[in-house]
């Protein structure tokens, strides 16, 4: 029997239905893999007892022929999703030993469909970061290494634990969240598939809030098909999230293998940056050639406000974060550091509980919302956001079905290599992904090749609002042409 952890979700689903193996066997194989891979620091909490309990329940359901769409599939959950009676920290010291008495809507739908919880996955503190180095549990290690080198590389962030665990076969798929690129950038760094759905497609209820108008949950998996399978369970209307949209959830898997003939694919000229590495240029033109060979038509498009997306993001996101994170005051949950007065208690708690990156963003957010600066910064940024969204609308109005871009400006970098002197250096990682959040559109990152050092690189497809299906069809074409990339096991 092949190693159960290397199966795709689609293959495991078949094996479970055919009784080639049980959910319990599949789960035990993953629990053993997790134990042997602790050096990666992908999991911040392993839940083997819960996993085995859920696996046995899934086996019973499958035995009766009543298994749900994800029956017996072991998953990892980003520690930003509240899981009932299981510690949830957002990888921040300020949440301490928070044990939610409730379950996030997205994870509750995964359990409804029969999936199994293996444990909670590492992420940047409150999802603020692009390398998973801001986590209070320490950095995650990318299973990929440069050829001939032992240097530890970052898996990207903020969903670094999710990407690393999926790439290293420590779960069959994982939940993640994306505020500026936090699903797609780590997917690109680890040769996994990451989907950032349209804003409003997945409920935000029960997910620790970072920037509420940008946050969106989505899956990371090893194939486009697997990501489509997970999306179907994660998506859907939720009355508890006022921005959740009440439209039907399609069978995303049915979009896999659908012809892309005649589709118009936009190639935005503004994404061709000065000094872009030749291998990223090549990856991009390879991707365009594959789509063309599949019958799609390539057209050059213009998104004139692209360069303003990242600076506008660094006003809007910290502003919303400063408001959302006001709740961490040492009163109702998490850490409390005493003070002589209640004000001093708040200040001491927040000084000790927040890491450097979170403190920086809360402070900049406080500043841009403060009296006298609101119009100059926040209001202007929200106007620029309207223009960014309009760029995309104009482009789609001309009949463009999707837009093809590189996912990241480089491959994975070393732990401690970036952002030490200037925080902006780290922020530039999200230059190709952040526009999508600003406009509320869906995006998918698909592995497409390797750089000269043998590290994976990804392509991004951006779709029309609520048309994730087209992204799955196009993503499948790229995956078929580029093939699969698996990191050699060294841990």
């Amino acid at each position, binding site marked *: 029997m092949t190693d159960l952890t290397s199966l795709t979700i689609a293959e495991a689903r078949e094996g479970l239905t055919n009784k080639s193996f049980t959910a319990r066997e599949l789960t035990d194989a993953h629990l053993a893999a997790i134990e042997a891979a602790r050096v990666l620091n992908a999991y911040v909490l392993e839940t083997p007892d819960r996993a085995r309990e859920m696996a046995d329940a899934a086996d019973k359901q499958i035995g009766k022929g009543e298994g749900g769409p994800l029956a017996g599939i072991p998953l990892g959950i980003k520690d930003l999703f509240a899981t009932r009676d299981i510690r949830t920290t957002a990888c921040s010291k300020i949440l301490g*030993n928070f044990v939610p008495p409730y379950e996030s809507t997205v994870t509750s739908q995964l359990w409804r469909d029969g999936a199994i919880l293996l444990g909670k996955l590492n992420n940047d503190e409150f999802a603020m970061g692009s390398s998973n180095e801001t986590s209070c549990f320490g950095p995650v290690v990318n299973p990929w290494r440069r050829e001939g080198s032992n240097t530890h590389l970052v898996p990207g962030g903020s969903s670094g634990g999710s990407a690393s665990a999926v790439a290293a076969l420590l779960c069959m798929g994982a939940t993640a969240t994306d505020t500026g690129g936090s699903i797609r950038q780590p997917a690109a760094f680890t040769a996994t598939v990451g989907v950032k759905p349209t804003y409003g497609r997945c409920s935000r209820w029960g997910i620790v809030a970072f920037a509420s108008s940008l946050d969106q949950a989505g899956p990371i998996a090893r194939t486009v098909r697997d990501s489509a399978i997970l999306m179907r369970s994660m998506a859907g209307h939720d009355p508890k999230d*006022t921005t959740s949209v009440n439209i039907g959830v399609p069978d995303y898997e049915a979009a896999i293998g659908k012809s892309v003939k005649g589709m118009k694919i936009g190639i935005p000229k503004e994404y061709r940056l000065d000094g872009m590495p030749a291998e990223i240029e090549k990856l991009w033109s390879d991707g365009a050639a594959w789509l063309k060979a599949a019958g799609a038509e390539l057209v050059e498009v213009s998104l004139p406000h692209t360069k303003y997306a990242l600076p506008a993001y660094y006003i809007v996101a910290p502003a919303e974060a400063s408001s959302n994170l006001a709740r961490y005051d040492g009163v109702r949950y998490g850490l*409390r550091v005493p003070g002589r007065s209640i004000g001093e208690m708040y200040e001491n708690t927040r000084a000790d509980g927040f890491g450097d990156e979170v403190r*920086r963003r809360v402070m900049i957010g406080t500043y841009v919302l403060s009296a006298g600066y609101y119009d100059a910064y926040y209001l202007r940024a929200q106007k620029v956001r309207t223009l960014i969204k309009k760029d995309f609308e104009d482009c789609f109005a001309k009949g463009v079905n999707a837009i093809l871009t590189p996912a990241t400006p480089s491959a994975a970098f070393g732990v401690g290599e970036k952002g030490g002197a200037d925080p*902006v250096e780290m922020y530039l990682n999200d230059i190709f992904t952040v526009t999508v959040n600003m406009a509320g559109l869906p995006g998918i990152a698909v592995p497409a090749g390797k750089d000269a050092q043998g590290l994976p690189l990804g392509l991004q497809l951006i779709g029309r609002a609520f048309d994730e299906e087209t992204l799955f069809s196009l993503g499948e074409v790229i995956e078929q042409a580029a093939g699969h990339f698996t990191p050699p096991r060294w841990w």
Partner: protein
Amino acid sequence: MSVDATTVRRIAQLARIAVSEAEVPHLQGELNAMLAFVEQLSEVNVEGVEPMTSVTPMEMKKRADVVNDGEIADDIVRNAPATENHFFLVPKVVE
């Protein structure tokens, strides 16, 4: 625009984060690096542009004004650092 040391202390106070004197110069440098980065937005012509207020155009949802949850006081205080009889305890506020 850039911030001086006094403004950094003022922001920290508004954000309710204790910042020591020794940390101020470093924080000032970081905040100014971010402000320099976002400065390029001033070159965008936003004349007559509406600020984005809703990501997805949709009618605001309203729910019935009814009690549909409650009686979970134990759950509510379960994670609090200090409680007494279903109340959150804080340092003395009123003399």
